[in-house]
């Protein structure tokens, strides 16, 4: 399909404000401005969107923009990452921890292709980011030019939307739209690909006040009748459960969920992405559900007569075997994305809308004088499960540091109040089980895509966006090495990032699966030749510490958490420990496997890879 200039650009009249000379300290509105080149227009537009930080890496096709960044020092911060993947994950960490749109900037070709993992990660976890990539000049596009790649084509399936800016006059409206699309509806990543000559061309900056997207109208309010049906069901169904996910975090709806749960005396189970959206210490919280969720959370889902899902999407890690999932339950599904409803599980009461808005509608439907339903029998069952099947692990005695104990100590020493980032694997699941975050925006993890290497840059994004808070990365010896080069960024930018490596010398989660499902035929999971992480930290200019014995653990963590700047704590933990409980992939909730008896003392050493 061809098109002339986008119609909305012609409709833009009265610009809200025009740009100022770079020297002007206050971005006050001026009626008309001088023509400026695309590179400067881009940065002025970012400032108008409230962007204070760009995570990026320069290169040929984006040179004009970096030239303007140099001229704008003091107005916009640029964090120089050491690999473009790190820029995108940092923007994600910034976005998730602050609630604002994260921004990454890269050059054409390999710079842009290196963002693909980050874009796919943000797409799966609905994280609002805008990635700006340089592109070769328009007359070279399609010529296999140096550092040329079809970036719009490559990133189309892993962005919410993407743009190739074909004229400098389209640039301002494109940036406006990109930020609007990133943060509204189901949030997600947007990529803007800008040919080098477009950043060199000049025009008058006219920043539109409004976007014109005739086909894009996200539904915020739920259908009133369906909301009423859902509330009636919640009031009259005894065995009910609230299942809350990342949508609650994205809509900042934790307070509303708390009210709903308390008004109706409902048990609540958060997903991995929903951790922090309901207080973990609350008596109605059952803990996380899913493959490594608590026994109680999973059995509650299996036995409930009513499942009310809010901002969660019935992911395969949550449902297990679909034909055995919640067979007798009526399902209410609140989701801003209509395509999530009825996708995996047949829904009885579909409600398309924003989590916070819909829960407010629900609260308004509850009669003011309603006495919370006691659900006595249901709660008794749940309490029995909680008593009989708590999260537990075996004590390592005075020889072996248990990874779960590390997480518990970290939670204690940080008062559960750090912004926790994780990578992917066993440490991620233990962190989810044993570090109860106080807020959804204090828990940064790669849920949908499962990206090893997400953690360190995400922790950088959190540290950048929240300079007064502690940014704690819980990682493993495998994941950490995937983006380890970002240690340089942490030191360069003087970031307050604390890294706790649960070092078991293995790709532990893969090893666990090989142990359980491949007859212990360990294949390429032993990290026999891993580097000395203490020396690595020191070589980068940070602080390195190690604990190898339980007796050293507390003092190492205390020292590490209180040392300013970048600290890497290499914690040598049990090699054999598995994550339990576990529902095998494709198994049903009632087939949940609990771990070995915690009362049996230290684990027997097993021969590993």
């Amino acid at each position: 399909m061809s098109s002339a200039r986008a119609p909305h650009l012609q409709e833009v009249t009265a610009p809200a404000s025009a740009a100022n000379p770079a020297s002007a300290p206050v971005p006050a509105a001026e009626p008309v401005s001088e023509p400026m080149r695309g590179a400067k227009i881009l940065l002025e537009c970012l400032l108008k969107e409230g962007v204070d930080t760009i995570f990026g890496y320069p290169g040929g096709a984006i040179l004009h923009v970096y030239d303007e960044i140099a001229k704008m020092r003091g107005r916009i911060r640029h964090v120089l990452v050491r690999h473009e993947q790190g820029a995108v994950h940092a923007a994600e960490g910034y976005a998730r921890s602050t609630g604002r749109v994260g921004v990454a900037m890269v050059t054409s070709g390999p710079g842009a292709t290196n963002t693909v993992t980050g874009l796919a990660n943000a797409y799966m976890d609905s994280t609002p980011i805008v990635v700006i990539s340089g592109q070769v000049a328009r007359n070279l596009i399609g010529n296999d030019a140096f550092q040329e790649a079809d970036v719009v084509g490559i990133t189309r399936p892993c962005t919410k939307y993407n743009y190739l800016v074909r004229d400098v006059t389209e640039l301002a409206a494109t940036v406006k739209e990109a930020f609007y699309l990133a943060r509204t509806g189901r949030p997600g990543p947007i990529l803007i690909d800008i040919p080098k000559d477009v950043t060199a061309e000049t025009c008058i900056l006219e920043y539109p006040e409004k976007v014109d997207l005739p086909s894009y109208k996200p539904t915020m309010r739920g259908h009133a009748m369906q909301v009423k049906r859902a509330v009636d069901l919640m009031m009259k169904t005894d065995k009910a459960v609230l299942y809350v996910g990342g949508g609650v975090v994205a809509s900042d709806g934790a307070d509303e969920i708390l009210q709903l749960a308390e008004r109706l005396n409902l048990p609540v189970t958060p997903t991995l992405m929903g951790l922090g959206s309901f207080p973990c210490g609350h008596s109605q919280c059952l803990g996380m559900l899913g493959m490594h969720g608590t026994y109680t959370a999973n059995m509650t889902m299996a036995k409930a007569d009513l499942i009310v899902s809010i901002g969660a999407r019935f992911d395969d890690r949550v449902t297990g075997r679909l034909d055995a999932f919640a067979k007798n339950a009526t399902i209410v599904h609140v989701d801003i994305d209509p395509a999530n409803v009825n996708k995996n599980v047949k829904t009885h009461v579909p409600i398309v809308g924003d989590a916070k808005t819909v829960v407010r509608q629900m609260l308004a439907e509850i009669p003011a004088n309603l006495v919370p339903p006691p659900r006595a029998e249901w709660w008794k069952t749940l309490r029995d499960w909680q008593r009989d099947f708590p999260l537990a692990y075996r004590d390592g005695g005075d020889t072996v540091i248990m990874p779960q104990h590390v997480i518990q100590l970290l939670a204690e020493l940080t008062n559960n109040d750090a912004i926790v980032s994780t990578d992917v694997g066993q440490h991620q699941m233990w962190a989810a089980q044993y570090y109860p975050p106080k807020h959804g925006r204090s828990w940064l993890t790669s849920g949908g895509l499962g990206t090893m290497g997400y953690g360190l840059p995400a922790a950088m994004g959190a540290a950048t966006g929240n300079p007064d808070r502690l940014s704690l990365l819980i990682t493993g010896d495998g994941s950490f090495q995937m983006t380890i080069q970002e240690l340089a960024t942490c030191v360069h930018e003087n970031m307050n990032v604390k890294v706790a490596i649960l070092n078991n010398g293995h790709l532990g989660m893969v090893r666990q699966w090989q142990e359980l499902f491949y007859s212990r035929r360990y294949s390429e999971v032993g990290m026999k030749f891993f580097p000395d992480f203490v020396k690595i930290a020191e070589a980068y200019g940070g602080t390195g510490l190690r604990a190898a014995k339980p007796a050293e653990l507390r003092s190492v963590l205390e020292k590490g958490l209180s040392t300013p700047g970048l600290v890497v704590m290499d914690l040598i933990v049990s090699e054999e420990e598995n994550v339990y409980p576990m529902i095998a992939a494709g198994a049903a909730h009632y087939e949940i496997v609990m771990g070995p008896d915690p009362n049996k003392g230290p684990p027997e050493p097993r021969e590993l890879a």
Partner: protein
Amino acid sequence: MKPRHVLSVLVENRFGELARVVGLFSGRGFNIDSLAVNVTIDPTFSRIVLTTHGSEQVVEQIVKQLRKLVRVKKVVEMSDDRFLERELCLVTIQASGAHGRQELERIVSLVGARVVAYSPTAFTVEHTATSKDIDQFLELLRPLGIRDMVRSAPIAVARPGAENAGENVQSLGGAA
């Protein structure tokens, strides 16, 4: 065979939007059987009419995923008889002998097709009908010797009075 579905997708007429629609199908493991695209009365919009096969659940997902696309304004399922469907077929027939020519003339007038080009030994016939009728038409011609054949993708439109039909297929909300 899973049921056939005709979907009409109204999309903003912009660079790259067709690729998004097509990519959605391949990326999510759906099949496109046929595809027709052209501009609408409003030149800022294009209409894509595509046919696909799948269970109700699969088609519900396809429709929802299409509606999620930022520049897709409307998706209508046009599979029932409230909608008119037409497909164009151009077929070149070997008809050198008198008998063959007579037989061809009979079939062409019978079904309301027409001859649009010819040579001493062959005729090119144009026929516009539903996909099913075109199938039958080709079966009639097959014994005469089909030298070449091209079919367009079907296009579809609501019959007068049914203009708003088909829009409520799983209308659970707008884009997200």
